[in-house]
C-alpha cells in the first residue's frame, strides 16, 4: 500500500516537472516563466522530501528547508525588480 502511494507521488512529480518545463519553454511573458520556475522549485522540494522518505535519511530534509526559504526570497526579489527596481 505504502509502495503504491510512493509510486503515485513519483508519477505526479514526473508529470509536474514535464508540465513546468513546458510552460517555461512556451511561456510568452516573463511573468509566466517566473511562475513556472517557482512551481519547479516547489516540485524540487517535494522531490527531495520523497527521496528522504525513500532512502530513509532524514538529514536530506534540511536541504529541502533551505530550498523553501530560497524559493521565497528569489520570487520576492524578482517581483520587486519587475515592479519598480531592486
Amino acid at each position: 500500500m505504502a509502495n503504491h502511494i510512493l509510486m503515485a507521488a513519483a508519477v505526479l512529480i514526473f508529470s509536474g516537472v514535464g508540465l513546468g518545463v513546458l510552460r517555461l519553454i512556451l511561456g510568452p511573458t516573463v511573468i509566466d516563466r517566473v511562475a513556472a520556475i517557482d512551481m519547479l522549485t516547489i516540485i524540487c522540494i517535494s522531490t527531495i522530501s520523497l527521496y528522504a522518505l525513500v532512502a530513509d535519511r532524514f538529514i536530506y530534509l534540511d536541504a529541502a528547508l533551505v530550498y523553501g526559504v530560497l524559493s521565497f526570497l528569489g520570487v520576492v526579489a524578482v517581483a520587486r525588480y519587475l515592479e519598480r527596481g531592486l
Partner: protein
Amino acid sequence: MLDLLVYLLCGGILASGLLAVRLKSLLAASVSAGLAGLFAAVCYVLLGAPDVAMTEASIGSGLSLLFFLYAMNRMGRSKD
C-alpha cells in the same frame, strides 16, 4: 526509479541551460540560469551530498540571481 529521476533532472538542466542562452529577455535568461543550478542541486541530493546541495542552492541559485538583478538594475532598464 531513481535512474529515471536523475535522467529527468539532467533533461531539465539541459533545457534550462539552452533557455538561458537563447532567451531574449535578460530577466528570464538569468532566472532560468538559476533554475539550472537548482536542478543540479537536486541531483546532488540524489547522489548523496546534501551539504553541497545546500551551498549550491543558496549561493549558486539564490545569491547569483540577486546579483544579476542588482546589476541589471544598475545597468538601466532600457532593453529589459
